[in-house]
Every structure is written in C-alpha cells, then in structure tokens.
C-alpha cells in the first residue's frame, strides 16, 4: 500500500438504484420543515440524503434550505447538518472533507466512507459563492459534492433576481412596469457547463431535476462515489417566486426539461453526455415542446407579450441548434459550418 492510499479518505460504493421499487424507505430528511407548499428544494434535500445514505454530513449555506429547515430550534435533519455563510458552500465542503481526512489519518475516528455534501441556493452558488466553489473543485485530494439547488431567485428574502433568474421574470428587483415591461434582461448563467469547462481535474459535474427522481438520485450516488470534488446543479421549481400553484412543481420541472430550457447532462471523467429526456430531444426521439407551454403557467411571466415569448423561444432554439454542444456549450465554432470530409 503506498502512502497516498494510506492517506486518501475511503470512498463509498454506491451502485445506482435500478428502478423506483429499489429506492430505500429510510428518510434522512424528514417532515416538519417550514418550507412553502410544494417546495421542490425540500424534495431535493430529501432525495439527496436518501441517495447518499446514513453516513453523510450535510453543510448548507444561507438560503431557504437553511432558514426553513431550522425553524426556531428544531430541524427535520436526521443526518448531521451545519450552517455556513452565504458564499462559502465550497470552502465548507473542502474544510469538512479535509477535517475528516485528517481525523482518519490520525486515527481519531474510524476509517470509513463519509459523504460530505455542501449545498447552496442560486444566490449562494451562482452569484456569491461561485469563486469558492471554483476553488473547491481544484482541490482534488478531498472527496465532496457541492449541490446547487436553483430556484432562480433569492427566494428566502422574497425573490430578488440572481444570476440564475431567467430572462424577463418578474422579481422584487425586476417588477413589470408600464414604462418598462422587461427589467431583468440577463440570460441565465450556464453554471454546470462553466464549472465543467473550467476545472479539468473535476471528475463529475451534472445537472438534475427532482421531477425525475431516480435519475436524480443516481447522479448523486455517482458524484459521491467517484472521488474528488464534484458538482451538481439541480433545477427546482419554486411556487413562491414563480407564482404558480404548488401542485405544479413537479410538472414545471418536467416542462423545463421537455421545452429544452434546462438540459440534463453530465460530465463524467471529462466525457460529456446528455441523458434522460434531453438526450431523447437531441436524438430526435422526443419532440422539444414550445417554451410557451412552460412560460404561461407561471405568474412571473404573466406580463410577457407574444414577442417576448418568441424571443425566449429563439434563444432556446439557438441553444439547441447553434451551440457547439446543444444546450451546454455556447461556442459556435467555425468548424460547425465547415464539416470535415467523412
């Protein structure tokens, strides 16, 4: 056994769940959290630790999943959980993973696989904590997963726009007015692809949506068992900020994927692949639905005119037809128009 094997923290073996009937019954994030009705991010927490299992430590930066899950000195967490500051999901992940590694090396705790998961919202991950996440993904000697639960606004503080808010959405910072109908003119950041492209030693980056629960959990299991720092971007419908009936959370997650707005992909050992419905769309086996089907079901887009919807559709079409990798990498290399001979 060489010295690196002696010191490396052991990795768990987490086979994918083969079908919904094989999903374990145990809950490590249980009832009694003060989240909204139909909160998809609460579902993400539940599925995340269900996939990870009991030997898991969860770290959460400030956001809904901190505040709502610690209402007045009580918690729904079964596994150990710790709060960290808004921009420090990455730092907390590295520090905790390094701490466990050191304690195991010194023989202070048993050598065993312990999953370290650090989560952040889009305010914490797409805006404030992006640099710390980037740094964490460079520290390949520590095993951890950073999960971004993206509800497309600062939802906890009543819906301010973030770098992840979609074009044109009504937020506290971008109300639709008479003089200016569209105030939020930024296009949503493509965080997972950005992190995958920029961190060549990170072995796993993926996007998930909890509407596809088994796919979701299997991506978590893959990220936790591959070793080194990993990153997953989860797309979470938010009834509060999106202004929709809470019972539509699941449907809106599906629609975001089926309209092509949020592509499901993973970068596993630097090999990029679309999966699930996004793969079927790319292969022409699933019709890409019009974005109208998704936009008109949310109050945050109620001010959209047909022109706005057309613009949104054109941007999504461009993602799927012009980008180097459909829906993932926005480069439009000249080589695309200049196909080499077969």
């Amino acid at each position: 056994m060489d010295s690196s094997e002696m010191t490396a923290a052991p990795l768990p073996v987490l086979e994918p769940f083969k079908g919904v009937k094989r999903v374990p019954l145990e809950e490590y994030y249980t009832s009694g959290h003060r989240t909204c009705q139909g909160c998809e991010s609460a579902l993400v927490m539940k599925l995340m630790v269900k996939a990870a299992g009991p030997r898991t430590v969860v770290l959460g930066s400030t956001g809904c999943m901190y505040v709502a899950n610690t209402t007045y000195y009580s918690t729904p967490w079964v596994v150990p959980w710790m709060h960290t500051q808004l921009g420090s999901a990455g730092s907390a992940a590295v520090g905790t993973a390094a701490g466990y590694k050191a304690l195991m090396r010194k023989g202070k705790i048993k050598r065993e696989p312990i999953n370290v998961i650090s989560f952040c919202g889009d305010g914490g991950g797409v805006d404030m904590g992006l640099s710390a996440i980037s740094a964490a993904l460079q520290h390949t000697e520590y095993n951890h997963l950073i999960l971004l639960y993206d509800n497309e606004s600062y939802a906890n503080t009543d819906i301010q726009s973030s770098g992840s808010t979609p074009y044109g959405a009504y937020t506290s910072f971008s109300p639709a007015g008479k003089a200016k109908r569209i105030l939020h003119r930024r296009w949503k950041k493509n965080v997972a692809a950005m992190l995958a492209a920029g961190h060549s030693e990170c072995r796993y980056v993926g996007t998930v949506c909890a509407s596809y629960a088994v796919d979701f959990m299997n991506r978590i299991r893959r990220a936790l068992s591959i070793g080194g720092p990993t990153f997953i971007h989860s797309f979470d419908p938010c009834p509060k900020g999106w202004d929709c009936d809470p019972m539509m959370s699941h449907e809106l997650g599906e629609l975001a994927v089926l309209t092509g707005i949020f592509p499901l992909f993973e970068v596993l050992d630097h090999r990029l692949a679309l999966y699930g419905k996004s793969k079927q769309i790319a292969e022409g086996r699933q019709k890409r639905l019009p974005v109208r089907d998704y936009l008109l079901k949310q109050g945050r887009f109620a001010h959209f005119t047909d022109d706005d919807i057309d613009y949104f559709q054109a941007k999504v079409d461009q993602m799927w037809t012009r980008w180097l990798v459909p829906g993932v990498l926005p480069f439009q290399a000249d080589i695309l128009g200049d196909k080499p001979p077969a």
Partner: protein
Amino acid sequence: MGRTVSVEIVYRGIFQKTLAKNISRGVVLAARRGGKVGIAFGRYGDSPERNGVPAKNFAIVAPDQDELELSMAQYEPAETDVTIAVDDTLCKGVESWAWYGLQPINQKVRPDGVLVVTSTLPADAIVEFCHRKPFPYRLAVIPAIPSFSGLWVYKNDHTDVRVLGTLAKVCPELVSLEAMLAAIKEEWKDDLKVTSARRAYEQTEVRVVRPDEGNPEVPYTFTLPGWTAMREGVTVEGMPLGAPMRVGGEVGGYRPARNPYFKKFSTRTMRPVVDFEKCVKCTLCWLQCPDGCFDVTPEQTYDLNADACCGCGVCAAVCPVDDCITMVNEAAFTDHRSQWERYKADPAAYAAWVRGMLAGQSERSHGFRYRGQYQEQIAKLRAGAGGEGGGE
C-alpha cells in the same frame, strides 16, 4: 375621541400577502379620513413568508399620535377588537413556526370583539372549527370563496374591499362607512369596488358565539427553552431514524420520525384523500412528497400522515391513476385519523366515505395555474352571485 382599536388579519403566507396588505392599509387610510391616526404592519416573525404558512398583519388605529405610539411599543397586540381570517380553514387553528403550538384563530379576540371570516360555509359550521372562548364574542361571515393568488399576479375579486365594508359595520368605532368608502374610492379609483364594499356592509350578519359553543379541544402548546436550557453551541438535536410500521400483528414498511415541534398541518387548505382500492403501488406520491408525509404501510401502500401534510397537492398531481388521490377542502374533515387504518378496519365503509368526500367538493384553488385563470374565476363569481366581486 375614542380609544385605540386593534385589527388583526390572519392570512395564508404569500397566497394572500397582497390581500392582507390591502386590508390593513385600507383600514389606516380610512381611519385618517375619520380624523384618527393608524399604522399597518406585518409581523416580523412571519418573514420570510412561505406559501400557505399562516401569517399575520395588523392595523392599529388610535385617536392621537401619543396613543398610537404607546401601542406601537408592542410586537403584536395582546388582544384585538377585530380578527379577520381571510380563509376559513385558518379557523381550525394556526401554527406559524416551530414551538408556536396550535393557536386558536380567536385567541386575541377580546370580550365582545368580533371574528370576521370569508367562507362559503354557514356561520354555525365556522363556529364548530373555532376553539372555545370563556366569554361571548361575535362572528361575521362574508360569503366568499377564499381568495388565493400569488406574489406577482393579484386576483382582484374584491375580497379586500368586502372585508373593509364589513369592518365599518362590525366595528363602527374604528371607522365610519362614509370614511371607508371615500378611502376605497381614493385608493383604487374604482366605483365597482366602492359598490362591493357598500354591499358587504349592508349584507353583513353578525352572530354571537357563546362560551359553550365551538371546538372544546385544548390546542397543543410548547414551552420554548430559554438560552440557558439550549445545548452547547446552540446545536439542535437531530431527528431520530424512523422504523417499520407496526399495525396489529403486521410489521413492515416504514414510518419516519417527524419533527414534533412543527407539525405543519395548519398550512393545509386541501387534504389528499387516497382510494386504496385504486392504488397501483407506483411509489410516486411517497417519493415526490417534499414533506415526507406518507408512511409506507406493510402492504407497500402509502398512508398520509395528516399532522405532517401541508396540502401542496403534488401527490395528486403525480399519481398516475384517475381519482386515486384527490385533493378535498380541509373544511370537510373533522379529525386526523389514518386513512389506511380506516380502510383496513372496514373497506366498504371507507369506500363510501371516499365517495362522499369526492361528491361534496367545494371550489378551492391555490393560485396561478395558467394565464387568464383569475379572469375566468371572477367572471364565474359575478355570474353566480349576482354581481358579487365586481358590482353591477
């Protein structure tokens, strides 16, 4: 000059945030027209608001600035002249955060104070929900489907001004009808809203609730530990792991442990009814529930825990079988009994109960589903109630 009058508005977080703001603001604007001063505010502890979790707004009206400032030193009034519940299911009690316990809707109503409720139910049915008070108080019911919308698109079904018109009737020392109508006219510049308020004033009927009427249960309470009783580093004890269900002689499935300090059911306005005969055991309701409120039975069916369910309706939305899970108005239920245990005890009686529940559905919705929905709902209200929610 009169005395300080306190108005409390209990509402469903986010869904009725704009509605509650319109009411508390309307009270203060009308009071100013009547030569008084007032302040409208939301309760700090409710922030950040969550969809459905009960929240409160207050309007305090005083004869002069000194009196008003005296009452502003309080976090919330100890007792109210008027408590308004803009959703009738709130009358079963409210739990706004952990350790809060279940607080009766009429908790703050003072002797001879008034509880105003918007509901399609008769006053006698509302009384049954409300916990008993040791003294008589008054109840006024505004006949209306509780008004739900969201953070950005407001459903302008005139519930706000109908409540304001009712206030002028039930609490004349707060504000006169003339001042109220003038304030509404100035704030909304809409004659139809003035008409709706006046009609509500004319139609309001008030009933006295006696101490021997109402829900006799004593609601659960907690004693919040002081800082000296908290654990080192203010760590919070985690939840224990759950265990397989034990029902009669059967052992199997799984029942998670649940946070005892925040049950969340008072967030619910609709409750899922499960028809176990139709269940195909697909797992989706259990797997997709954000609140983990389904117990897995030894038969691998899924039994709703009525203490934990907040009524989001995701289970009914993902269920692949028609009419297997149906959302039913919470007002139709009187207890939290396990539906599965009822089914096991007597399948035929349970089937009859499910049929009855589905047949007696009254209309409810939880906000925005598609563009144009609110206009359709308001048009239906107008047609059905002879000008209600829009005047003539």
